[in-house]
């Protein structure tokens, strides 16, 4: 056993860009996996010095503490607007935003749709867990019909709360987008696919091909009041019926 544990035999380790700060996310949170994928992709592309992330308001507000690249913190929902400015000033850079569904699909809907429609050369990583995680599990625009949250304790009803918003489907209709996809990170195979999608989006940003949107259907075990393993199972059973995983637009 001892002769296996040796540096030359390492086949997987935490990416070096993901630093040793303890992540504040709840145990089993999808954010951790996506952070890891972003760090891995940036490392593999060799663009550490050219990568600029824009962190949102929401659970991922401290993303800049965990991945050692340049970051800018945006006002709530305004990450795509800020990323637009950064990319226009530094056109050679990889510019991406990292946003949750409350940030991107609610308060930032206008910024998101217009940035994508203008075809800004940015990548948007959209974490959709159908709930407001940080503020305590309230209903989000993306909450599924019938899903119970703190502010719709009897389940989401169409007459009272309207319908869940499929922002990724909207993005696929816009002229400015070059790559729109929906992925998840609940299994090894899904994580590998999600990594390829993030890499594609980042390459699109660097090569100025247009806007990319990568939605990651995620869990919120605290907000859903489940264990991380149960949350993944619940997501497979309920979320994928409404949020179909796969590429929506590849140009």
């Amino acid at each position, binding site marked *: *056993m001892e*002769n*296996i*544990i*040796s540096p030359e*035999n*390492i*086949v*997987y*380790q*935490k*990416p070096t860009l*993901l630093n*040793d700060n*303890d*992540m504040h*996310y*709840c*145990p*089993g*949170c*999808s*954010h*951790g*996996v996506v952070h*890891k994928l972003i760090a891995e992709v940036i490392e593999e592309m060799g663009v550490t010095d050219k990568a600029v992330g824009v962190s949102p308001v929401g659970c991922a507000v401290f993303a800049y503490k965990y991945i050692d690249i340049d970051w800018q913190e945006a006002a709530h929902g305004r990450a795509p607007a800020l990323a637009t400015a950064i990319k226009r000033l530094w056109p050679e850079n990889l510019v991406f935003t990292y946003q949750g569904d409350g940030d991107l699909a609610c308060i930032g809907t206008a910024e998101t749709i217009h940035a994508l429609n203008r075809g800004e050369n940015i990548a948007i990583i959209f974490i959709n867990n159908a709930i407001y995680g940080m503020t305590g599990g309230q209903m989000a625009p993306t909450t599924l019909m019938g899903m119970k949250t703190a502010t719709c304790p009897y389940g989401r009803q169409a007459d009272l709360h309207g319908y869940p918003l499929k922002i990724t489907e909207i993005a696929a209709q816009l002229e400015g987008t070059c790559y729109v996809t929906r992925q998840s990170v609940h*299994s*090894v195979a899904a*994580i*590998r696919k999600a990594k390829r999608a993030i890499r594609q989006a980042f390459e699109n940003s660097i090569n100025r091909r247009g806007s990319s949107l990568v939605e990651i259907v995620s869990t919120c*075990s605290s907000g859903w009041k489940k*264990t*991380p*393993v149960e949350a*993944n199972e619940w997501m497979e059973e309920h979320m994928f019926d409404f949020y179909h995983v796969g590429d929506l637009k590849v140009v």
Partner: protein
Amino acid sequence: MAKMKGAIVVNTERCKGCSLCVVACPLDLIQLADKKVNRRGYRFVEQVNAEACTGCTSCAIVCPDGCITVYRKKMEN
């Protein structure tokens, strides 16, 4: 025939005991430590029956906190 032997090292101080690796391991070689917690109060995971590990990296890929380092070596026997 050459056989792949693997080993994992868990950063137990970083681990939050979410158990996603426990279900991801195809050989069921990982479990939550019994009556042990780290400095942040989380139960952490540890490997059982380490001899059987093939170093497939499934546990490390699903780990949200990047706590697992995987080693793999081809054994001639």
